[in-house]
């Protein structure tokens, strides 16, 4: 199998939402209020690769993940799947694409229907796509998917309701549902953040195993940098709708460049005694995405911000092989070389 075979290629993706305004506001203000949740993102994901998307809430990471799967409408930009542009207005094509691209959600307590048996929940995608003819075939496929997700023996779980499963088992059942159509690409949105730490590592191992055995590509959305480091090949740091830094996961953790990444790293909780660690706790919170600051969107919280940062938006430039950063500090350096 070819490595570096591109699965998903996102180009200039933008997702914007209108803010509902009151009737009077609508009449008297000419300008529409828009939330720019994703504001121009380029992202490539290869076969058998896990790319983590890290950011605070409101950074647009979940919206980006959903937009790639057409779960929220894309305002601008395009998405290539295996080199082919997806036409989201073509229902048939979208359906075919959805076969191959699946999502795992954060909360397994909500993503499984409490009233449906595991077998029905997992088999639902098969039925929607008319992929099974006999009940036997259906059962067989569900058992296989359950066992691939670590619920073995699968027979024991078929006729259980979600409330009879533990949190970790629920998430595994949800993963089985997303595996049953043999996808090539999965968006996993904080798949372990609702689970106890002792269960968490089991799910991470499962995802890594799937990556190896099926050459699956993942977009792993998380707010936890240490998890991203642990399981992914690449890490993309997102801030207010844009990727500010992206690179190999070790590179980002050990040699990060963007002041925002560095701040995130410095406050990352590590189970160590460190009373006098040099922590860069940023003041304030992530700005409202309907009022994105002018220039570099991080300038309001950046300790290094200078005049240019308030005026000109920095571009994402390659500093080293595959290590991109969007910051004027490095632009200068880069131009100087």
């Amino acid at each position, binding site marked *: 199998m070819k490595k570096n075979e591109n699965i998903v290629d996102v180009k200039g993706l933008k997702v914007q939402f209108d803010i509902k305004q009151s009737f009077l506001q609508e009449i008297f203000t000419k300008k529409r209020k828009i939330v720019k949740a994703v504001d121009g993102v380029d992202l490539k994901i290869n076969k058998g690769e896990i790319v983590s998307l890290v950011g605070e809430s409101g950074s647009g990471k979940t919206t980006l993940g959903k937009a790639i799967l057409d779960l929220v409408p894309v305002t601008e930009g395009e998405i290539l799947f295996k080199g082919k542009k997806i036409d989201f207005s073509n229902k048939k094509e979208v359906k075919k694409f959805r076969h191959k691209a699946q999502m795992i959600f954060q909360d397994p307590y909500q993503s499984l229907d409490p009233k449906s048996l595991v077998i029905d929940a997992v088999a639902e995608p098969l039925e929607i796509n008319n992929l099974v003819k006999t009940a036997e075939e259906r059962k067989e496929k569900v058992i296989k998917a359950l066992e691939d997700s670590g619920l073995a023996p699968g027979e024991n779980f078929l006729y259980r309701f979600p409330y009879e499963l533990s949190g970790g088992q629920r998430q595994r059942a949800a993963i089985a549902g997303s595996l049953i159509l043999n996808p090539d690409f999965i968006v996993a949105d904080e798949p372990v953040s609702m689970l*106890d730490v002792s269960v968490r590592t*089991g799910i*991470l191992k499962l995802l890594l195993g799937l990556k190896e055995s099926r050459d699956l590509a993942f977009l792993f959305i998380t707010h936890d940098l240490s998890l991203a480091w642990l399981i992914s090949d690449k890490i993309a740091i997102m801030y207010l709708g844009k990727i500010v830094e992206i690179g190999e996961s070790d590179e980002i953790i050990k040699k990060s460049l963007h002041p925002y990444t560095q701040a995130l790293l410095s406050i990352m909780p590590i189970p160590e005694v460190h009373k006098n660690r040099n922590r860069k*706790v940023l003041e304030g919170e992530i700005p409202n995405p309907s009022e994105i600051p002018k220039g570099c969107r991080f300038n309001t919280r950046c300790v290094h911000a200078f005049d240019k940062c308030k005026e000109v938006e920095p571009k994402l430039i390659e500093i080293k092989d595959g290590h991109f950063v969007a910051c004027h500090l490095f632009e200068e350096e880069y131009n100087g070389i």
Partner: protein
Amino acid sequence: MELLKINNLKTYFEISAGTVKAVDGVSFSLNYGESLGLVGESGCGKTTTALSINRLLPQEGKILGGEILLEGRDISKLKESEIKKLRWNEISMIFQGAMNALNPVMKIGDQIAEAIVLHKKVSYKEAIKRSKELFELVELEPERITNYPHEFSGGMKQRAMIAMALACDPKLIIGDEPTTALDVMVQAQILNLLDKLRKELNMGIIIITHDLSILGETCDKIAVMYAGKIAEFGTVEDIYNNNMHPYTNKLLSSFPNIHKEKIIPEPIEGVPPDLINPPSGCRFHPRCPYAQDICAKEEPMMTKVSEGHEYACHFGGVFNEKE
């Protein structure tokens, strides 16, 4: 000096399925100006321990044994009317969903003032003045006491909740997962704030969390709970660098550490036990990779390693002897 001492606390819940032994013989102590982290998985009894201290247990929950000494006085058997006087004045609590605990149709300053007027004999005007002082203490702009909760971000609401908890100068603050719903950056801000306040006001703080990794910055001592009991108790150094209980060890290694080798930690097999019929002997033995026959038969007693560092295991430190 000792602010809080808990001796052999037992809090059980009577439900139709039986008696849930949520807290079963928990003991620890806390000094003035000290912070203690109470850690464990969901259902280990950490929140029940906290709710027992200021007696906010649901109806089914009863304290059936042990004592809770606040400045030497046993408060576990006080009448409801008496414990009411202690809440806010002596012990206050910051809840997990604190941001949603604010009344959305009432100005934040008024909500804090209301609490002050209820618990102290002061006029409303004085209470508002106090709210402004409190806002300054938690690094919010005092003018913003006239704001409504929806005008605050998550982190600001949590700060306002901390201000409210501080309203009557309590000696002890209990934070039940005070940062769980917050972003990492805001979490760091809030933990810094709690740390600063504790030192300035010489309060005792108990932080309840499932996240063992956040305690390194803020706590002096850590109590690791498992299935209603304390598995290990010690200073942050003891727990992080010199832990003796296999559960502490396993739990700790579940957190990735970017300064160490990149390996996916082994999960702890199985699930926490049912506390209606807890396992015999050591409650951790069904999940413990080092368990032997004695573990299922005999309950391990607390073994002392050094002053203030104790663990409950028949084979403490066994994981160090592997090679």
